[in-house]
């Protein structure tokens, strides 16, 4: 079923048909109601001169505003959505990161003991994220949530102990090889870079041996911290490009 996009708050009769709108006259019910378009670009033939003043005024409104504010019954094409699973050991900052991406408070965040489902909006896509707790008791269930995913976000605490880093690596390998994830794009985040003892992205990439072990797969590894959300958003933008590319691939049997 198609997902509804943003719908103008004006509805019902009395809408305005916009030439250059993607709907043809048959689809646009406003046009069928016999309403003349007053949108600046391209006046309909036979428009009365008294409409010209109004249409010039409307010209001043940007085309984007016109499309949003005036009613054309169908919404503009919605942003693509991708289903993504977010995993990583406990304490790596998954819940915190997602809360910040959604501009929500991080007060009172405790270790996740199940899943957190959130729709995270980006300028050109929406990620429906299933974030899973990383405690021992929860991570054994991770694979129950893999089906239907289109991408994986794997979070690492860059300042964790060596033992933890080793465990992280094992979990990452497991995910990379899992039948339901092995063909999907991976975003690996070397998080918590604000910590003084944080390893660099290069060090982590080397330790994880991704150049060899993830060869042929689609992945990005980047350093980040919630102290710099602009960078986080840029990184997710890159990941979204990978997801889009994957989507456009012809599916193999």
């Amino acid at each position, binding site marked *: 079923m198609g997902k509804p996009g943003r*719908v103008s708050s004006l509805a*019902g009769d009395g809408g305005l048909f916009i030439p250059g709108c993607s709907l043809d006259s048959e689809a646009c019910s406003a046009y069928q109601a016999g309403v003349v378009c007053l949108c600046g670009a391209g006046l309909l033939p036979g428009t009365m001169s008294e409409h010209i003043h109004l249409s010039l005024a409307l010209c001043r409104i940007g085309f984007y505003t016109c499309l949003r504010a005036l009613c054309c019954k169908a919404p503009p094409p919605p942003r693509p959505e991708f289903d993504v699973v977010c995993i990583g050991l406990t304490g790596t900052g998954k819940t915190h990161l997602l809360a910040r991406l959604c501009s929500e408070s991080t007060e009172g965040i405790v270790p996740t003991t199940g*899943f957190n*489902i959130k*729709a995270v*909006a980006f300028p050109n896509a929406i990620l429906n994220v299933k974030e899973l707790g990383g405690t021992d008791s*929860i991570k054994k269930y991770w694979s129950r949530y893999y*089906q239907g995913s289109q991408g994986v976000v794997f979070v690492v605490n860059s300042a964790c102990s060596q033992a933890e880093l080793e465990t992280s690596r094992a979990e990452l390998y497991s995910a990379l090889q899992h039948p339901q994830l092995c063909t999907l794009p991976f975003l690996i985040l070397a998080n918590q870079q604000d910590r003084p003892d944080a390893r660099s992205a290069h060090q982590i990439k080397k330790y994880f041996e991704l150049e060899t072990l993830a060869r042929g797969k689609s992945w990005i590894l980047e350093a980040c911290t919630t102290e710099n959300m602009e960078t986080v958003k840029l990184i997710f933008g890159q990941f979204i490009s990978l997801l889009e590319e994957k989507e456009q691939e012809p599916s193999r049997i």
Partner: protein
Amino acid sequence: MSYSCTSTDTRQDAKPPGARNPRCGDGDGDADGQEDATSDRAEDMRVKKGCSATDMGVPVVTEEELLANTTITPEDVLGLQKITENYLCGPDQNIHNIDFTRFKIRDMETGTALFEITKPPSIGSDGKRTFDSNAGRFVRYQFTPAFLQLRQVGATVEFTVGDIPINNFRMIERHYFREQLLKSFDFEFGFCIPNSKNTCEHIYEFPPLSEEIMREMIRYPYETQSDSFYFVDNKLVMHNKADYSYSGGP
């Protein structure tokens, strides 16, 4: 714009106004212990956005017909054309001890939190969390007219699950104004880990409402109502209700 939201007391005996005592289906309230073979596979979580008109291809049913059934399935409730007068199941059917512990709404355009309510855990004298079976079945929301101008609202629900893992948890929520279906929302959570606490934020796109309907909704508080049906392995286990005022006052 200002919003004011209140909720009813979520104590055990909260009932929707004017409702008779909830009747339940004749279904055996206890688990029959048999899991459907097909429910073994992990269901992926997905949202099925219902249309804002009658769902296509689903036979129309009445509440009375459903109450005569042993069990009620998701397809059954998708055929309901109006808000039910009664609860379609009793608290004893919630054998998985699903408990809703928090609810929050925010405006997606500005990120502003509009409303939040948390249910304190009920602790028995033995220190264990007691199962408060009737709590939270009904909520009354009081919004100002400005609420109807929102386009996208994020609604977060937090819930806990008991000892039994759940293979396929699904929610269908239907909003009506009088007898008109405004929006049907269908979300499959899929698998739920035993003894977990989970959150889910779903984005409500406000259906296109004509100025006329919005005026009526504002003018007639509590005639906007919703039924939330919860299914485990395609059987109804919980039914919550809510009603809504947009007039800005009690």
